[in-house]
């Protein structure tokens, strides 16, 4: 499921497609249990990253697998089962996010540096070598996780699926029901936002 791995390791035992077929045709409890075991940690991780807290993530996890069981007959197998499952989980996580108080929106201009006639005019410090120190690196990762919580839901979903779950742009597009260019645009914005938060952090450290 993760493109971070150079080769996807096929799970031992029957394929997802075979398990889905058994579940669809006869409500096979063992097939469902195998699908739950295979994907629960991945769904939990996605839900945790999207909702930002364990309680909401657990509810998303439970709702997702209940929905999978109840709606498996509507799954037509055009996409991979994992993509469908991720879409279900992402939708439940979205619902949680929608009930929260909206944060003030940040525009693309706010995360880009300043340009004059197309030329970058800000002084950009190259702090790319600083996280070589392990303590700094850990702190920087904490800054990233906090910044992910600040992302608007659409950017957050694309970013989490692509960058933290390691899915390909095309798969993220399918899950979110958007185009690949839209995925890239949301991803780029999120990266720029996180980069900005890290730049502020490194600036504070040097003061």
């Amino acid at each position, binding site marked *: 499921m993760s493109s*971070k791995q150079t080769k996807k390791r096929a799970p031992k035992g029957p394929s997802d497609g075979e398990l889905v077929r058994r579940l669809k045709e006869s*409500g096979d*409890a*063992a097939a*469902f*249990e195998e699908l*739950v075991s295979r994907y*629960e*940690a991945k769904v*939990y*991780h996605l839900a*945790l990253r999207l909702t930002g807290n*364990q309680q909401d993530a*657990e509810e998303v*996890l*439970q709702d997702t*697998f*209940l929905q999978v*069981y*109840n709606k498996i007959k509507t799954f037509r197998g055009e996409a991979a089962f994992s993509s469908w499952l991720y879409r279900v989980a992402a939708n439940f996580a979205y619902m949680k996010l929608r009930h929260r108080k909206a944060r003030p929106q940040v525009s*693309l201009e706010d995360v*880009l*540096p300043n*340009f004059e*006639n*197309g*030329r*970058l005019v*800000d*002084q*950009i*410090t*190259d*702090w*790319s070598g600083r*996280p070589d120190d392990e303590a700094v*690196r850990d702190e*920087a*990762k904490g800054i*990233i*996780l906090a910044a992910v919580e600040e992302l608007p839901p659409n950017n957050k979903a694309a970013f989490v699926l692509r*960058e*933290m779950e*390691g899915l390909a*742009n095309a798969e993220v597009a399918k899950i979110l029901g958007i185009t690949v260019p839209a995925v*890239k645009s949301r*991803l*780029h914005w999120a*990266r*720029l936002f*996180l*980069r900005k938060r*890290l*730049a502020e952090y490194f600036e504070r450290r040097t003061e």
Partner: protein
Amino acid sequence: MNPQKFNCKYGIGKVLCDYADGTIDPAVKRIFEKHLEGCEPCWAFMRTYSTTIRLTREIPAEEMPEEMRKRLRNFLKEQIGSP
């Protein structure tokens, strides 16, 4: 892409994402790298953008608590009698 019209804003706004992912068109890559050679702020921006991606990808997945696995199964059992 006309190399004469290539500037910092275009590079950072439109090219950097694909460049960092290695999915950039080779011709555009050459133009962007030529620009980076002569533009220190863009070079620093590209390096820090790439570091942001690298650090994010290094963040480990949080383990799912064992108790949560049990609660998931209890929940599903209550709702549907399975798994």
